[in-house]
């Protein structure tokens, strides 16, 4: 039961990370915050 519950949480976290990265790298670029985040551009 515990293992199954953990599996669902992990699945959700992995999917969330994937969606976050897709949005992060493919959102329209331009203006403030469009860089990699290492600079303040």
């Amino acid at each position, binding site marked *: 039961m*515990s*293992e199954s519950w*953990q*599996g669902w*949480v*992990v699945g959700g*976290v*992995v999917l969330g*990370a*994937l969606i*976050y*990265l897709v949005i*992060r*790298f493919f959102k329209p*670029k*331009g203006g403030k915050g*469009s*860089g*990699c*985040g*290492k*600079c*303040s*551009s």
Partner: protein
Amino acid sequence: MNQDGAKRWVAVVGNPNAGKSTLFNALTGLRQRVGNYPGVTVEKRTGTAFTLHGDALELIDLPGMYSLSPRSPDEKIAWQVLHGESKGVPRPDAVLCVVDASNLERNLFLVTQVMELGLPVLVALNMVDMAEAKGIHLRPQELSQKLGVPFIPTQAHRGKGLVELRAALGQGLHRPGPRQWAMPPPLAAAVGQIAAAWRESLPAEVTAEGKALELLAGSNVGPEGARKLAAGWRERFRKEAYDWSAAVIHARYEYVRNVLGAAGVLGGSRIATWTDRIDSIVLHPVAGWGVLAGMMMTLFISIFSIASYPMEWIDAGFSWTGLFLEQRMPEGVLRELLVNGVVAGVGGVVIFLPQILILFFFLGLLEDSGYLARAAFLLDRVMHRVGLSGKSFIPLLSSYACAIPGIMATRTVEDPKDRLTTILIAPLMSCSARIPVYTTLIAAAIPAALVPIWGKAAAFLGLYILGTGTAFFLAWFFRKKMLGGGSPPLILELPPYRIPAVRSVALRMWERAIIFLKRAGTVILALSILLWFVSSFPVRSEDPAEKLAGSYAGQLGHLLEPIIRPLGFDWRIGIGLVGSLAAREVFVSTMSIVYHVGGEEAGLVADMQGAHWPNGDPIYTPLTCLSLLVFYVYALQCLSTVAVAKRETGGWGWPAFMMLYMTALAYGAAWIVQIVGRALGFS
């Protein structure tokens, strides 16, 4: 507010390095990037300031410009704002000219041009302390009377004169009177005719003469009759070999000199200042290079020595967290994700925070002190030889922090071919994201007991020199062989030395720490989670090493191994290379996750040193580490750099070329290292 209740817009203009952004920050309370060298601001920024009566003003901080004839993309931005042709920003209601009081003649040249825009003008006489230290007797009252616009003495970096400036901005500013400089006779006739043809259709506040000069300079904005007249005069001047633009410049300077003389502003003494004395050493053709090399070595030794203590603390913190989770959480996939994915991946990168902060501490000191402009001067001879102008230095220097602001800073480069070349080579400068990769691989290649810290620092310096040297060679190839054309001579302003402001350096380090940690908590965290997932599934064995080999990442690594085997890399390094395609530092996270999932937990460097080929030979020999280091010096492992290069070059063609040439260079160079190394008897 205006009389009609609308917000008032005030443009902040001035020569590069006159302190515009410092004054902008002081008035708005913002933290716009500033530095003691020209060309820091390449875009317009807006912020709200308040007059003494509490009325809001919208300030527009513009890139520095020497004149109103735009030559580079950043100067064009300033020109567009001042002429009301910039999207999203109305034509300003007034202009705040920031002038460097220690260099009034050149700074007031721009003021005379701004006065002809037909907008109310206020002059901030900035850096009065520097001017006085140079022995210049400033007389703001007299200057105001002679030039016809108010002068307010300020020291923006110390916050002095701001109250007076706010008060002046709150009072109704007046438009300057008619032109006072004497226009040379042949030009006066031309300007008179063109202005007459345009005057009736112009708003009352715009000076027709200023517009006529713009038309003569080649602008195509204006009524057809005036444009035709301007073209006719241009042709006539060309036939008569009359350099009208030089005549205007000469006449303006003559006027400025007269104003300064009449106002009793006396020039500085010729006595050698501290700046001159220091420059005699740091700009010396031989000693200067020694100073530069010494500074770089000090920086790298500090990166290894001072940073080692906080790095050990951070490492211990993450190790404790991993152990805590392992002991307290029930066994399962969530615990694996947290220990082997999140803690190993994020911890693997966060550990390098002290090194990155030390880099920015040193860069902050060098920048604020004014030394970096001297380094540009030293390097100019080399840069000129490879076909680049000194203007490319600041973008390339910024790229040591991160290629993204570096590529954006190329907007100060006037020549389009120079600019493109600079964009193409900027990612070869070793950025801060390479520090984790370099440190890890140097530590894996060189056992700590055998080589002192300065040896590691020398290896670090060598990697920086390799990247920079190759960038210069390629600049020569791109500029002279591929794109063609000559390179303009360098006109570089050397700012006076200043004692770096502790607050400014500390603030910059704080900002970098926040940016770095934010990135570790977002992009690196998300990538670590995904990398853990692809390194852990599908589960085909309970044995950690076999589990990793059978995972998606393991399968991909094995698929890549034949391609990277000639470079001395195994399939696990292959996973690291793919994992770090988005960002270089992810290589360290990936390797950390790969070895954790693979059941190794002695620490990344120890895990790497213990890794073996199936025949028992070690993988991370000094030769393989060198190959991998050279690969990372050259490879364009940064999606954000590709995106910003696309934006700045206006298409996918050049970013694709950049990606291709850098990947080919990285592979080729790493392969040559292996071939030569093996021929010399290394394994």
